Protein backbone atom coordinates (compact mmCIF):
# COMPACT_ATOMS: atom_id res chain seq x y z
CA UNK A 1 0.00 0.00 0.00
CA UNK A 2 1.50 3.32 -1.08
CA UNK A 3 0.67 6.42 0.88
CA UNK A 4 0.47 10.00 -0.30
CA UNK A 5 3.47 10.82 1.90
CA UNK A 6 5.62 8.33 -0.06
CA UNK A 7 4.41 9.88 -3.33
CA UNK A 8 5.42 13.32 -2.07
CA UNK A 9 8.82 12.00 -1.07
CA UNK A 10 9.42 10.23 -4.40
CA UNK A 11 8.56 13.44 -6.29
CA UNK A 12 10.51 15.68 -3.94
CA UNK A 13 7.20 17.51 -3.71
CA UNK A 14 6.22 20.42 -1.55
CA UNK A 15 2.98 19.82 0.35
CA UNK A 16 0.87 22.90 -0.30
CA UNK A 17 -2.19 21.56 1.45
CA UNK A 18 -3.27 18.46 3.35
CA UNK A 19 -0.32 17.63 5.61
CA UNK A 20 -2.77 15.76 7.84
CA UNK A 21 -4.00 13.68 4.86
CA UNK A 22 -0.64 12.25 3.83
CA UNK A 23 -1.68 8.82 5.11
CA UNK A 24 -4.22 8.55 2.28
CA UNK A 25 -3.68 5.49 0.10
CA UNK A 26 -2.72 5.98 -3.55
CA UNK A 27 -3.55 3.01 -5.77
CA UNK A 28 -3.59 4.64 -9.19
CA UNK A 29 -2.78 7.88 -10.97
CA UNK A 30 -3.45 9.80 -14.14
CA UNK A 31 -1.46 12.54 -15.85
CA UNK A 32 -3.50 15.07 -17.84
CA UNK A 33 -3.92 18.73 -18.67
CA UNK A 34 -7.27 18.08 -20.24
CA UNK A 35 -9.92 18.04 -17.53
CA UNK A 36 -12.45 16.65 -20.04
CA UNK A 37 -10.33 13.49 -20.21
CA UNK A 38 -10.04 13.28 -16.44
CA UNK A 39 -13.84 13.49 -16.17
CA UNK A 40 -14.31 10.88 -18.88
CA UNK A 41 -11.73 8.26 -18.05
CA UNK A 42 -10.63 8.23 -14.42
CA UNK A 43 -11.97 5.94 -11.76
CA UNK A 44 -12.51 7.22 -8.25
CA UNK A 45 -9.80 7.75 -5.62
CA UNK A 46 -7.10 8.24 -8.20
CA UNK A 47 -4.25 10.76 -8.02
CA UNK A 48 -4.15 13.53 -10.65
CA UNK A 49 -0.86 14.92 -11.98
CA UNK A 50 -1.33 18.06 -14.05
CA UNK A 51 0.32 21.19 -15.37
CA UNK A 52 -2.96 23.11 -15.27
CA UNK A 53 -3.42 25.33 -12.20
CA UNK A 54 -6.89 26.83 -12.50
CA UNK A 55 -9.91 26.31 -10.27
CA UNK A 56 -11.44 23.83 -12.71
CA UNK A 57 -8.74 21.34 -11.69
CA UNK A 58 -10.02 21.43 -8.10
CA UNK A 59 -13.65 21.21 -9.24
CA UNK A 60 -12.83 18.26 -11.50
CA UNK A 61 -10.95 16.55 -8.64
CA UNK A 62 -13.87 17.12 -6.29
CA UNK A 63 -16.58 15.89 -8.65
CA UNK A 64 -14.55 12.87 -9.83
CA UNK A 65 -13.70 11.84 -6.24
CA UNK A 66 -9.93 12.07 -6.84
CA UNK A 67 -7.64 11.59 -3.83
CA UNK A 68 -5.14 14.43 -4.40
CA UNK A 69 -3.65 16.74 -7.04
CA UNK A 70 0.04 17.04 -7.93
CA UNK A 71 1.04 20.15 -9.89
CA UNK A 72 4.03 19.41 -12.10
CA UNK A 73 6.79 21.61 -13.57
CA UNK A 74 6.96 23.55 -10.30
CA UNK A 75 3.72 25.40 -10.98
CA UNK A 76 2.12 26.89 -7.89
CA UNK A 77 -1.58 27.70 -8.18
CA UNK A 78 -3.10 31.00 -7.07
CA UNK A 79 -4.56 31.65 -3.63
CA UNK A 80 -8.12 31.23 -4.90
CA UNK A 81 -7.29 27.74 -6.19
CA UNK A 82 -5.62 26.75 -2.91
CA UNK A 83 -8.63 28.04 -0.97
CA UNK A 84 -11.01 26.05 -3.20
CA UNK A 85 -8.98 22.90 -2.48
CA UNK A 86 -8.95 23.66 1.24
CA UNK A 87 -12.74 23.98 1.25
CA UNK A 88 -12.95 20.51 -0.31
CA UNK A 89 -10.27 18.69 1.74
CA UNK A 90 -8.23 18.13 -1.42
CA UNK A 91 -4.49 17.68 -0.74
CA UNK A 92 -2.21 19.63 -3.09
CA UNK A 93 1.43 18.84 -3.93
CA UNK A 94 3.91 20.66 -6.16
CA UNK A 95 6.81 18.90 -7.85
CA UNK A 96 9.51 20.36 -10.05
CA UNK A 97 9.54 17.25 -12.25
CA UNK A 98 7.85 17.31 -15.65
CA UNK A 99 4.60 15.42 -16.15
CA UNK A 100 6.33 12.55 -17.94
CA UNK A 101 9.09 12.24 -15.35
CA UNK A 102 6.73 12.50 -12.38
CA UNK A 103 4.40 9.82 -13.82
CA UNK A 104 7.39 7.57 -14.55
CA UNK A 105 8.64 7.85 -11.00
CA UNK A 106 5.24 6.89 -9.59
CA UNK A 107 4.87 4.00 -12.04
CA UNK A 108 8.24 2.76 -10.84
CA UNK A 109 6.81 2.67 -7.31
CA UNK A 110 4.01 0.36 -8.46
CA UNK A 111 1.27 2.93 -8.98
CA UNK A 112 -0.73 2.08 -12.10
CA UNK A 113 -2.50 4.26 -14.64
CA UNK A 114 -6.17 4.86 -14.01
CA UNK A 115 -7.28 3.40 -16.29
CA UNK A 116 -4.17 1.75 -17.85
CA UNK A 117 -5.91 1.97 -21.23
CA UNK A 118 -9.27 3.30 -22.27
CA UNK A 119 -10.43 0.90 -24.96
CA UNK A 120 -9.55 -2.74 -25.40
CA UNK A 121 -8.20 -2.82 -28.98
CA UNK A 122 -6.48 -6.16 -28.81
Amino acid at each position, binding site marked *: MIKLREVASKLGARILLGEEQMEREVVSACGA*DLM*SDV*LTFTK*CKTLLLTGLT*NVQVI*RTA*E*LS*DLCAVVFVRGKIPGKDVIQAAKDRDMPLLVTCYTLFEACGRLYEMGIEGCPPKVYDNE
Partner: protein
Amino acid sequence: MNETNKMKLTYDVVSGDFDRAGEASSAIKRLLQRLGIPADIIRRIAIGTYEAEMNVIIHAGGGVVMAEISPESTIIVVTDKGPGIPDIEQAKQEGWSTAPDYIRQMGFGAGMGLPNMIKCSDRIDIASEVNEGTKITMEFKHADKV
Protein backbone atom coordinates in the same frame (compact mmCIF):
# COMPACT_ATOMS: atom_id res chain seq x y z
CA MET B 1 -37.58 9.86 1.48
CA ASN B 2 -40.73 8.17 0.28
CA GLU B 3 -42.68 8.19 -2.98
CA THR B 4 -44.53 11.37 -2.16
CA ASN B 5 -41.40 13.11 -0.96
CA LYS B 6 -39.57 14.05 -4.13
CA MET B 7 -37.00 16.79 -3.85
CA LYS B 8 -36.76 19.36 -6.58
CA LEU B 9 -33.98 21.94 -6.70
CA THR B 10 -32.97 24.53 -9.24
CA TYR B 11 -29.71 26.39 -9.69
CA ASP B 12 -28.98 29.31 -11.97
CA VAL B 13 -25.87 28.97 -14.13
CA VAL B 14 -24.28 32.25 -15.16
CA SER B 15 -22.74 32.54 -18.60
CA GLY B 16 -18.96 32.89 -18.67
CA ASP B 17 -18.60 32.64 -14.88
CA PHE B 18 -15.80 30.09 -14.80
CA ASP B 19 -14.93 30.73 -11.16
CA ARG B 20 -18.32 29.44 -10.12
CA ALA B 21 -18.53 26.75 -12.80
CA GLY B 22 -19.46 23.49 -11.15
CA GLU B 23 -21.19 24.99 -8.13
CA ALA B 24 -24.57 23.51 -9.03
CA SER B 25 -23.01 20.06 -9.59
CA SER B 26 -21.14 20.36 -6.31
CA ALA B 27 -24.26 21.30 -4.36
CA ILE B 28 -26.20 18.40 -5.90
CA LYS B 29 -23.34 16.04 -5.05
CA ARG B 30 -23.25 17.12 -1.40
CA LEU B 31 -27.03 16.74 -1.11
CA LEU B 32 -26.94 13.22 -2.57
CA GLN B 33 -24.15 12.32 -0.13
CA ARG B 34 -26.35 13.46 2.77
CA LEU B 35 -29.19 11.33 1.40
CA GLY B 36 -26.95 8.25 1.44
CA ILE B 37 -26.95 7.48 -2.30
CA PRO B 38 -24.08 5.05 -3.19
CA ALA B 39 -20.81 6.85 -3.94
CA ASP B 40 -20.29 5.39 -7.43
CA ILE B 41 -23.75 6.59 -8.52
CA ILE B 42 -23.19 10.04 -7.02
CA ARG B 43 -19.93 10.22 -8.95
CA ARG B 44 -21.73 9.55 -12.26
CA ILE B 45 -24.41 12.13 -11.44
CA ALA B 46 -21.79 14.73 -10.43
CA ILE B 47 -19.71 14.25 -13.58
CA GLY B 48 -22.71 14.21 -15.95
CA THR B 49 -24.13 17.35 -14.34
CA TYR B 50 -20.75 19.13 -14.40
CA GLU B 51 -20.31 18.42 -18.11
CA ALA B 52 -23.76 19.87 -18.82
CA GLU B 53 -23.12 22.84 -16.54
CA MET B 54 -19.80 23.57 -18.30
CA ASN B 55 -21.53 23.40 -21.68
CA VAL B 56 -24.04 26.03 -20.60
CA ILE B 57 -21.26 28.31 -19.32
CA ILE B 58 -19.14 27.84 -22.45
CA HIS B 59 -21.73 27.84 -25.23
CA ALA B 60 -25.00 29.32 -24.00
CA GLY B 61 -25.92 32.61 -22.40
CA GLY B 62 -26.44 30.96 -19.03
CA GLY B 63 -29.16 28.56 -18.02
CA VAL B 64 -30.74 26.50 -15.29
CA VAL B 65 -29.80 23.17 -13.71
CA MET B 66 -32.74 21.36 -12.15
CA ALA B 67 -32.43 18.24 -10.04
CA GLU B 68 -35.36 16.01 -9.15
CA ILE B 69 -34.42 13.42 -6.57
CA SER B 70 -36.71 10.54 -5.70
CA PRO B 71 -35.91 7.32 -3.83
CA GLU B 72 -35.43 5.51 -7.15
CA SER B 73 -33.57 7.98 -9.25
CA THR B 74 -32.11 11.41 -9.82
CA ILE B 75 -33.24 13.32 -12.88
CA ILE B 76 -31.10 16.25 -13.99
CA VAL B 77 -32.59 18.73 -16.46
CA VAL B 78 -30.28 21.41 -17.86
CA THR B 79 -31.86 24.12 -19.99
CA ASP B 80 -30.44 27.13 -21.73
CA LYS B 81 -31.49 29.76 -24.22
CA GLY B 82 -28.24 29.53 -26.15
CA PRO B 83 -27.54 29.05 -29.84
CA GLY B 84 -28.74 25.44 -29.90
CA ILE B 85 -27.03 22.41 -31.44
CA PRO B 86 -27.51 22.28 -35.25
CA ASP B 87 -26.52 18.63 -35.55
CA ILE B 88 -27.01 16.58 -32.37
CA GLU B 89 -25.60 13.37 -33.87
CA GLN B 90 -22.38 15.20 -34.73
CA ALA B 91 -22.19 16.71 -31.24
CA LYS B 92 -22.41 13.20 -29.78
CA GLN B 93 -19.18 12.22 -31.54
CA GLU B 94 -16.11 12.11 -29.33
CA GLY B 95 -13.74 14.92 -30.26
CA TRP B 96 -16.33 17.10 -31.99
CA SER B 97 -16.16 20.56 -30.44
CA THR B 98 -16.94 24.15 -31.30
CA ALA B 99 -15.33 25.55 -28.13
CA PRO B 100 -12.92 28.47 -28.61
CA ASP B 101 -9.21 28.19 -27.80
CA TYR B 102 -9.37 29.93 -24.42
CA ILE B 103 -11.73 27.20 -23.25
CA ARG B 104 -9.25 24.54 -24.34
CA GLN B 105 -6.53 26.30 -22.37
CA MET B 106 -8.73 25.81 -19.31
CA GLY B 107 -8.76 22.06 -19.89
CA PHE B 108 -12.17 21.81 -21.54
CA GLY B 109 -13.62 21.88 -25.04
CA ALA B 110 -12.17 18.52 -26.04
CA GLY B 111 -15.45 17.31 -27.48
CA MET B 112 -16.02 14.84 -24.66
CA GLY B 113 -18.94 16.56 -22.93
CA LEU B 114 -21.97 14.99 -24.59
CA PRO B 115 -20.31 11.56 -25.00
CA ASN B 116 -19.48 11.61 -21.29
CA MET B 117 -23.05 12.60 -20.34
CA ILE B 118 -24.29 9.65 -22.41
CA LYS B 119 -21.77 7.35 -20.71
CA CYS B 120 -22.58 8.51 -17.17
CA SER B 121 -26.38 8.51 -17.35
CA ASP B 122 -28.84 5.63 -17.59
CA ARG B 123 -31.02 7.62 -20.00
CA ILE B 124 -30.48 10.87 -21.83
CA ASP B 125 -32.69 13.05 -23.97
CA ILE B 126 -31.22 15.94 -25.93
CA ALA B 127 -33.66 18.47 -27.36
CA SER B 128 -32.30 21.47 -29.19
CA GLU B 129 -33.51 24.18 -31.52
CA VAL B 130 -31.10 26.48 -33.31
CA ASN B 131 -31.29 30.05 -31.94
CA GLU B 132 -33.74 28.94 -29.26
CA GLY B 133 -31.83 26.75 -26.86
CA THR B 134 -31.08 23.29 -25.58
CA LYS B 135 -32.65 21.03 -22.99
CA ILE B 136 -30.77 18.02 -21.74
CA THR B 137 -32.51 15.50 -19.50
CA MET B 138 -30.45 12.81 -17.80
CA GLU B 139 -31.78 10.04 -15.61
CA PHE B 140 -29.60 8.22 -13.11
CA LYS B 141 -31.10 5.21 -11.36
CA HIS B 142 -30.13 4.67 -7.74
CA ALA B 143 -29.01 1.05 -7.55
CA ASP B 144 -29.90 0.89 -3.87
CA LYS B 145 -33.08 2.20 -2.34
CA VAL B 146 -32.61 5.32 -0.28
